[in-house]
């Protein structure tokens, strides 16, 4: 990797200030599992790293509204095995444990999980054009190998997908991301945190320069009864999703009282459409209803050749995940 300097910061204020004032080419580092890897490939070449592990963001705590706050530097493993998460947010626990390996989950943090970059092969291969890595250079995946790429919300500039499992569950659970920056702190709803590529695929998120994630808040409602995280991939462990589905239901008798479905592996961000969900409230929870739901959630899906199979796979996976959630 490239040479860089590193500061271990002791306060969020110092971190944010240093991030903006020293050089523009800074990165925060927590677990480092994705960043160090990208630096070894020379995809990321920061001049300066700010180690945020000494900040006080390393705990899981209850919120006054009965929600749960996940500190930004809590590891993915500690989150997934946490008693409250297992009990009230089993969807989140299952999603996290379906991702990466034991070693990586022991290092990777919750804040870092949000900041994961795509696993598009061309993004990693510095010998090929990639608009995300080098804006304006072109997209090699459009006409290249695109089996793992997006079928929803892509642009002619970029068809990369977001690789996280955790974020797919967070999207279904309506989590909120707490951030702090030069102009103060703010809350970002998870569905507004990541962005679609549009004309600026180099931007994965709506964070302002220098903004730092401090926590992820989960609302009280955890759908701990009817939930499923279904991950479809090439091998049953330690592989990224081709398609994943976070499904959550609230059922009264056989009537849908609430339905949340978020998809991974199909878009530049977790794919969820609350307006579609609204249309299915008070409908009967049947396979036919779920099939109609799936059609609407992936309406407009487009394949690029190698990934055409994902359209049918996504549809079937949505129905299967909802049926599994229903039967729980």
């Amino acid at each position, binding site marked *: *990797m*490239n*040479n*860089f*300097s*590193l500061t*271990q910061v002791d306060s969020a204020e110092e971190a944010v200030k240093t991030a903006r004032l020293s050089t523009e080419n800074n990165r925060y*580092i927590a677990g*480092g*599992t994705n960043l*160090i*890897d990208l630096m*070894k490939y*020379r995809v990321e*070449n920061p*001049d300066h*790293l700010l*180690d945020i*592990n000494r900040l006080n963001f390393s705990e899981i705590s209850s919120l006054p509204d009965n929600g749960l706050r996940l500190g930004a530097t809590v590891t993915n*493993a500690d989150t997934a*095995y946490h008693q409250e998460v297992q009990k009230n947010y089993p969807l989140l626990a299952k999603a996290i444990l379906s991702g*990466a*390996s*034991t*070693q*990586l989950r*022991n*290092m990777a943090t919750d804040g870092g999980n949000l900041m994961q970059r795509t696993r598009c092969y061309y993004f990693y291969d510095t010998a090929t054009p990639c608009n995300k890595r080098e804006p304006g250079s072109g997209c090699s995946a459009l006409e290249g190998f695109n089996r793992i790429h997006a079928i929803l919300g892509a642009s002619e500039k970029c068809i990369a997908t977001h690789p996280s499992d955790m974020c797919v569950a967070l999207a279904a659970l309506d989590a909120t991301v707490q951030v702090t920056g030069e102009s103060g702190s703010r809350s970002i709803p998870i569905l507004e945190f990541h962005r679609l590529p549009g004309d600026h695929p180099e931007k994965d998120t709506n964070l302002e320069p220098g903004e730092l994630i401090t926590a992820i808040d989960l609302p009280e409602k955890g759908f701990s009864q009817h939930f499923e995280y279904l991950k479809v991939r090439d091998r*049953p*462990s*330690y592989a990224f999703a081709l398609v994943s589905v976070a499904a959550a239901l609230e059922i009264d008798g056989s009537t849908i009282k609430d339905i949340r479905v978020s998809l991974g592996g199909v878009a530049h961000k977790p794919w969820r459409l609350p307006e579609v969900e609204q249309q299915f409230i008070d409908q009967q929870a049947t396979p036919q209803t779920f099939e109609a739901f799936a059609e609407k959630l992936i309406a407009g899906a487009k394949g690029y050749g190698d990934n055409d199979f994902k359209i049918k796979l996504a549809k079937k996976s949505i129905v299967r995940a909802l049926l599994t959630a229903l039967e729980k």
Partner: protein
Amino acid sequence: MEYKNYPETHEIELQLNGTSQKLTISPWTTLLDALREYFQLTGTKKGCDHGQCGACTVLVDGKAINSCLSLAMMQQGKKITTVEGLAQGENLHPVQQAFIEHDAFQCGYCTPGQICSTVGLLNMKKGNTPEEIRDLMSGNICRCGAYANIFKAVEEMVQKEVSGTP
């Protein structure tokens, strides 16, 4: 690409296999490189160097991590254990003994990582089903394909509720 010149190095202190060790390094030195190149602890192996193979697995505060994806500077104040730190003098750690008894290796390159991951698994008190053991050990690749015997060694340790630490 041009390398920027950062002359500064940092003096760090690591808690390594039960002793405190000082080292002056550049920020970009990974824990894996520090172990192998500066402390001559070559039991920990460099395989892919990208967190995919698990050959570099060590224990940090009793948890298995990929030392190749961690900067040495960022591991100060934590208890680091490599495969060299598992035995008590001439007495092998029960996991090391189990790997011998089950013939759980062929070339041996992945073995230190497999053993550290097993110790980490025992510390987690997980692995109640064969599927869970396989899933939690999936971060360690064995290119000889000795998985069948590795699995038997791990399963025996889990079933006997062997204590994992250090």
